[in-house]
């Protein structure tokens, strides 16, 4: 009966009901649209960054400054920024494997000037652990050449970068060409030259991702002065140690500085020594790394894993961050947009609640006599408040559904237009080249929940006033 009363009260007050209906529908519509766009962009960014660059989680050395995969998020003014090296790498790796996290890959990161085809440009470098890197990033499609191998120096460039260089200089660039990298350190430079091993493309590239250069880790370490090998105990032969006992004061003046005639020195031996790799492949893998990237199994709670790992790895002085932090400002921008959107929705909702409360108050005042009558014939406080809440609940459910239907239809219509997304920033935001927003039931439920919450919140004050109406009002306003 109370349900009937609430429903018919809405039908009777057509004008205010219509007004409330429009208001709640509008808020639901805006919320659903906005949330769908943001959710889509969140998924798009995830496809762009987590599938191509950052994986699901990244381990970095705990730092005072905010970091991403390519360095500090904000420019470091006071000190020359050095990419921090992961401490206790082997222990961390063992801990991760003990946790059942097997899809891991370590990277070294840096920036260098790259010379290729007569063009010099600054590029972000990722020294990647192979072959694990390519197994956790299936979004990397090899177009020419081969993937980097564990024990070989080499570099991989994106198709877009190669095309751009070809266009700039009109020169052909092929797998096998030499690529030169220069990196400043202290007062000098380090230069390394490595062969172009492969050309690749990201399945869903984000802005500036075509600039990323994948390189073997040892080349990048030697460029950026990162420790190349693990600290191990070294056995020095006694005859070598005996050299230290010589007369150091006369080291450069003694007659046998270039060795005695019977020494075994030869130019061919020297050339052979210099051409041999400075470190063995096992040493390369044991060197310093800046980050460890973790791909979690589908369906696992990434936030929970992150929390657990942070607790476990805290003693090693490292921090686990999610893909968004690892991707840096580009991915964080969506969080800001989300923040502003929810702020806007909050403001609209507050304005909506105030309007609904006002309309409901007018409705309650108009019905003072009826409410007084209900009280006089035995309605409790709970019944009176329930009646007002029910009215708003019905209204918000109907209005929310109407708003959702309009929003759903509008979104379908927009999707059918297949609007092309012009630039890579917007493309990466949506994860596609054409504007298609996925219609998700979860977002619809959220929007409906917001409408209902709005309706119920708006009923609180009018309901509280309604229960203060005394039964005598039934007579006074008769």
């Amino acid at each position, binding site marked *: *009966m*109370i349900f*009937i*009363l609430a429903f*018919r*009260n809405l*039908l*009777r007050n057509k004008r205010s009901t219509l007004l409330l209906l429009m208001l709640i529908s509008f808020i639901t519509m805006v919320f659903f649209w906005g949330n769908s766009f943001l959710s889509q962009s969140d998924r798009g960014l995830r496809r762009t960054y987590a599938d191509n660059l950052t994986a699901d989680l990244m381990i970095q050395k705990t730092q005072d400054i905010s970091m991403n995969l390519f360095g500090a998020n904000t420019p470091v003014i006071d000190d020359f920024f050095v990419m921090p090296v992961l401490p206790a790498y082997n222990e961390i790796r063992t801990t991760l494997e003990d946790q059942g996290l097997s899809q891991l890959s370590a990277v070294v990161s840096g920036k260098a000037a790259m010379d290729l085809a007569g063009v010099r440009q600054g590029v972000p470098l990722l020294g990647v652990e192979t072959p694990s890197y390519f197994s956790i990033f299936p979004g990397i499609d090899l177009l020419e050449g081969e993937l980097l191998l564990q024990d070989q120096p080499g570099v991989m460039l994106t198709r877009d970068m190669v095309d751009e260089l070809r266009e700039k200089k009109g020169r052909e660039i092929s797998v096998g060409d030499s690529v030169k990298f220069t990196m400043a350190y202290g007062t000098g430079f380090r230069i390394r030259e490595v062969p172009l091993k492969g050309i690749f493309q990201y399945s869903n590239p984000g802005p500036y991702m075509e600039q990323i250069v994948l390189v073997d880790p040892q080349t990048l370490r030697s460029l950026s002065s990162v420790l190349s090998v693990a600290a191990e105990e070294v056995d020095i032969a006694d005859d070598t140690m005996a050299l230290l006992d010589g007369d150091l004061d006369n080291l450069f003046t003694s007659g046998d500085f270039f060795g005695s005639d019977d020494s075994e020195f030869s130019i061919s031996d020297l050339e052979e020594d210099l051409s041999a790799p400075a470190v063995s492949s096992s040493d390369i893998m044991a060197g310093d790394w800046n980050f460890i990237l973790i791909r979690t199994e589908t369906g696992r709670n990434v936030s929970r894993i992150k929390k657990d790992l942070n607790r476990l790895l805290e003693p090693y002085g490292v921090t686990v961050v999610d893909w968004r932090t690892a991707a840096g400002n580009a991915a964080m921008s969506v969080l800001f947009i989300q923040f502003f959107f929810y702020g806007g929705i909050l403001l609209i909702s507050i304005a909506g609640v105030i309007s609904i409360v006002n309309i409901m108050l007018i409705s309650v005042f108009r019905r003072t*006599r*009826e409410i*007084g*009558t*209900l*009280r*006089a*014939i*035995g*309605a*409790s*406080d709970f*019944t009176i408040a329930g009646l007002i809440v029910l009215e708003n609940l019905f209204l918000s459910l109907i209005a929310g559904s109407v708003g959702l239907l309009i929003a759903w239809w509008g979104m379908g219509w927009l999707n059918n237009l297949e609007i092309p997304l012009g630039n890579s920033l917007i493309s990466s935001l949506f994860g596609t080249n054409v504007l298609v927003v996925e219609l998700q039931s979860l977002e619809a439920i959220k929007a409906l929940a917001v409408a209902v919450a709005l309706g119920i919140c708006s009923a609180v004050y009018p309901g509280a006033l309604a229960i203060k109406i*005394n*039964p*005598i009002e*039934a*007579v006074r306003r*008769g």
Partner: protein
Amino acid sequence: MSIIKLSKLEKIYPLGKLEVAALKGVDLEINKGDFVSVAGPSGSGKTTMMNIIGLIDTPTRGEICIEGKNAGTLRRAELTRLRHETIGFIFQSFNLLPVLSVIENVELPLVLGRLKMKKNERREWVEHLLQEVGLEDRINHKPSELSGGQQQRVAIARALAAKPQIVIADEPTANLDSVTGERILNLMKQVNKDEGTTFIFSSHDPSIWKIADHTIFLRDGIIESETRQ
């Protein structure tokens, strides 16, 4: 045995800086099953007294006891319960809910209260009441589709729905023509005889006082006289 007892009942209304005393120390006892008429000219305090007896208004001073319970000591929820279980109210201007049909209006006190009744029993009881007031052919009509007399009969049926001990009717015939008014009073008298329900109705029309067993004359907020037949 008294079902209603008023002791030194006073009601003062503030009127700007002035205070207007509507009731000035009323002492009264009404017995169970009485058919009581509260008489007096306009402004004598009839409506005020009816509202206080009906527990929809509170006295400024004095005591009101319903079935031995002092209403002044009851909490809001207890008062609501006592009002619902003991008292039925018939308003001068009917006070039917416009969005509900005749049958729904009559059923409403049963839905609001704690009277244990199954849905079909409830329906049967309400239909019986509407038959008693002669509106069995109007059960699905809205109040706006009924005449004043018909609406007042619906109001009577509603007041009786929760089987109250006491029915208060404030000028139940004021908005009705004399013939309809007489029919309404006869209906109330019939229920009083059949069910033993205590009826208290107010009127300033001397021609209808004679129907009551017990008439109370109010003037300027005090009981001027009482007559019992």
